[in-house]
């Protein structure tokens, strides 16, 4: 999930399909990247459960997967913890720098 969302093109794709279902070609027309590259992004998003995919003749249509929003919420609930882990790291590093090394920063 994190990897699927880490790419700016993929986030842009999700914003595009928020308004409704779009064909792969329509999505690709918003990017400078090759259709093959966009297709790869679509596959990653579909595998992550964020996009639903269906075929209409030769066209492949993509929509935001409403089921996928729950994983998004789950993922977002990991974002604050990630920031707090960073806080922990920063505070503990700063303490090592400023305070004399009276404590090794590691528990017995």
């Amino acid at each position, binding site marked *: 999930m*994190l990897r699927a*969302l*880490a790419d700016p093109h993929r*986030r842009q794709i*999700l*914003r595009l399909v*928020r308004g409704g279902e779009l064909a792969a070609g329509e999505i690709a027309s918003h990017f400078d990247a090759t259709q093959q590259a966009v297709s790869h992004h679509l596959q990653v998003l579909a595998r992550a459960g964020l996009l639903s995919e269906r075929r209409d003749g030769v066209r492949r249509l993509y929509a935001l997967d409403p089921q996928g*929003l729950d994983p*998004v*919420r789950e993922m*977002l*609930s990991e*974002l*604050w*913890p*990630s*920031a*707090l*882990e*960073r*806080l*922990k*790291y*920063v*505070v*503990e590093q700063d*303490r090592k720098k400023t305070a004399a090394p009276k*404590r090794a*920063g590691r*528990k017995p």
Partner: protein
Amino acid sequence: MTVAEVLTATVRIGASPADVFPYFIDPALLVQWIGEWADLHPEPGGRFALDIGKTPVRGEYVEIEPPRRVVFTWGVAGKDSLPPGSTTVEIVLTADGPDTVVQLFHHDLPAEEFDSHLAGWTAKLDQLARLRT
């Protein structure tokens, strides 16, 4: 549609609450762990401004009780569906031996905003991922 959501997160830090607290009110310290730019006026009604990637998070401090608790509002400038002041972040610091347990509660986050919040947060994730490798 506004389904109120509360996000909670917690972490244990090997420092006292007095050591940790400034990281929520000092802009130079805040941006060491979240966002890239901040303008903070840590007093009730004082400005809380934080840019995370391209997302201008704006709000104001509501309660400041050093070194135990800080509450500020949280929204995105120019975003009608999540205006500044629309959600609230509450941080509680509790001493536990030599450590501090940090609890974070993000109140009133509308469910439908989660994925648009994403854009700003993912920039932070990228940064975190780089630091960890």
